[in-house]
């Protein structure tokens, strides 16, 4: 099975919407790869702590953020923009429904943690490695000084099956 995890990038804001993840002007693209340079292009945090063009985000495979990630439009382009940038896991306290479903449908992990656990993860930033054990539903975050935080999470069993099957299209094509 695909490996989930790697270097993490942190975005300290609630309600990051799909227009911020991938602006509507790129919806005319008909290949996923064309979305690659535009991930989070229009996102600005008030404190200036996020730069969509930074090296940090280019290296990341895990995105850690706050609540209601992916709200707004149904565009799966937003999930693909993550996918083509090698993001395999998003960790948040909650997700918008369509976005969360799109993630599992594409075989990408949406992990929900409590606000308190997220605070602990944010406390480790920057330079954090997060590895996910899908079987045990656990993740381990390690910072530059080798301090570790372990968190367990729970996935809806069906969503887990989708991730294991390689997405909903493959699953449904076999079953229905």
């Amino acid at each position, binding site marked *: 099975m695909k490996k989930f995890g790697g270097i993490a990038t942190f975005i300290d804001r609630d309600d990051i919407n799909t227009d911020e993840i991938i602006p509507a*002007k790129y919806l005319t*693209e*008909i290949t996923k790869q064309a979305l690659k340079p535009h991930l989070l292009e*229009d996102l600005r945090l008030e404190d200036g702590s996020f730069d969509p063009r930074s090296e940090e985000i280019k290296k990341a495979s895990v995105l850690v953020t706050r609540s209601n990630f992916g*709200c707004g439009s149904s565009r*799966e382009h937003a999930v693909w923009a993550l996918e083509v940038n090698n993001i395999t896991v998003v960790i948040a306290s909650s997700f918008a429904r369509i976005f969360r*479903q799109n993630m599992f*449908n594409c075989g990408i992990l949406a992990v929900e943690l409590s606000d308190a656990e997220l605070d602990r993860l944010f406390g480790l930033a920057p330079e954090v490695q997060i590895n996910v054990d899908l079987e045990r539903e656990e993740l381990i975050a390690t910072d530059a000084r080798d301090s570790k935080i372990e968190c367990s999470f729970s996935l*809806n069993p069906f969503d887990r099956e989708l991730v294991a099957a390689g997405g909903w299209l493959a699953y449904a*094509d076999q079953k229905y």
Partner: protein
Amino acid sequence: MGQTIAEKIFAAHLRDSPTPDNMVLGIDVVMCHEITTPIAIVDLMDKGMDRVFNPDRIKAVIDHVTPPKDSKTATQAKIMRDWARRHGIKDFFDIGRNGVCHALFPEKGFIRPGYTVIMGDSHTCTHGAFGAFAAGIGTTDLEVGILKGVCAFRKPRSMKIEVVGEMQKGVSAKDIILHIIKQLTVNGATDLIMEFTGPVIASMDMASRMTLCNMSVEAGATSGICMPDRVTAQYLWPFIQQEYASIEAAVEDFAKWCSDDDAVYEKTLDIDVTTLSPQVTYDYKPDQVKDITEMAGTPVDQVYIGSCTNGRIEDIRAAAAILKGRTIADSVRGILTPATPAIYSQALDEGLIKIFMDSGFCVLNPTCGACLGMSSGVLAEGEVCASTTNRNFNGRMGKGGMVHLMSPVSAAAAAVTGEITDPRSFLDK
């Protein structure tokens, strides 16, 4: 134990239940537009799966950027057009016959009480106004919908929103839903179905119910839904008269979908609209809502009346009542986009288009256009738009632009004065 309308619809369409919490439903209508469908078509073709489960249950429209603005949007349209022809999809709507999906498809009678409806568009929740379960989905779900006619959802959990009181003049469904989203916040209804009930909803026309349900996703909801009743039956009558002996008979049949009195809800919210003022958003999230009086005087550069939220004939009439005999401020660009050709034509017949044009508005063909900042009225950096659409996200109508969401009468009032204005000051005179 009683059931909610959503539970009844889910039970009637259940095809599989991979876990007790996950339900795979048979889908009655799969709707498609040219932003999210071509990429699904191309992917299915690449995978050697270019099939459709049932061409009669697929409805397709080119609406987001139409006529095409450039080669890329022309290509998207072409992929859709070729696909519809290839698979014999009869209900495909192209230029001249096309309109904003969530206004066009109800008008064609495609949505019925008790139906399951999906589309690769978050505002698919609009169709819940007919007592259907209608939800926005992504492209993978759309591909499976097109291929197999099924879609997976979590077990439905509902929230009951009871709306009572007497609406003041100048207050409309748009103000009610903005007020509700403010109460709930942008994720207050995540994974829930917002069921709108109570005397205010019962006396609302279908256009207002669609406006309400349209914005349920802005509170995170899976969908909005209203009980199908006489108003629903009357709207659908031209399409169902072969099936029912009378409107009475249709109303009676529709009742089988309505929530039971002892149905169980996750949450309830009571709204009294008696003292509700016109509402407006003030920042980049749809729950950032204030009474319009608090925002009065904010200058606007553009006024946009249209979209699946408020581009229907009722909305155009309401705005025209304010524009009649007046001209819009010199500092303002006014844009009207009737949501469908039938609405446009009706507005012409009623002399409404002339009122808009005489006031200084530009009248465009039916399209989503400026609503998502892709064409037909994109804002420049720093510009402000008073808009009847549903989303005020940063950059939504153009990078660096600010969108204030409001009702059609409030937007018309802003056009006349050039600033956010309480529309009641026009209506009282």
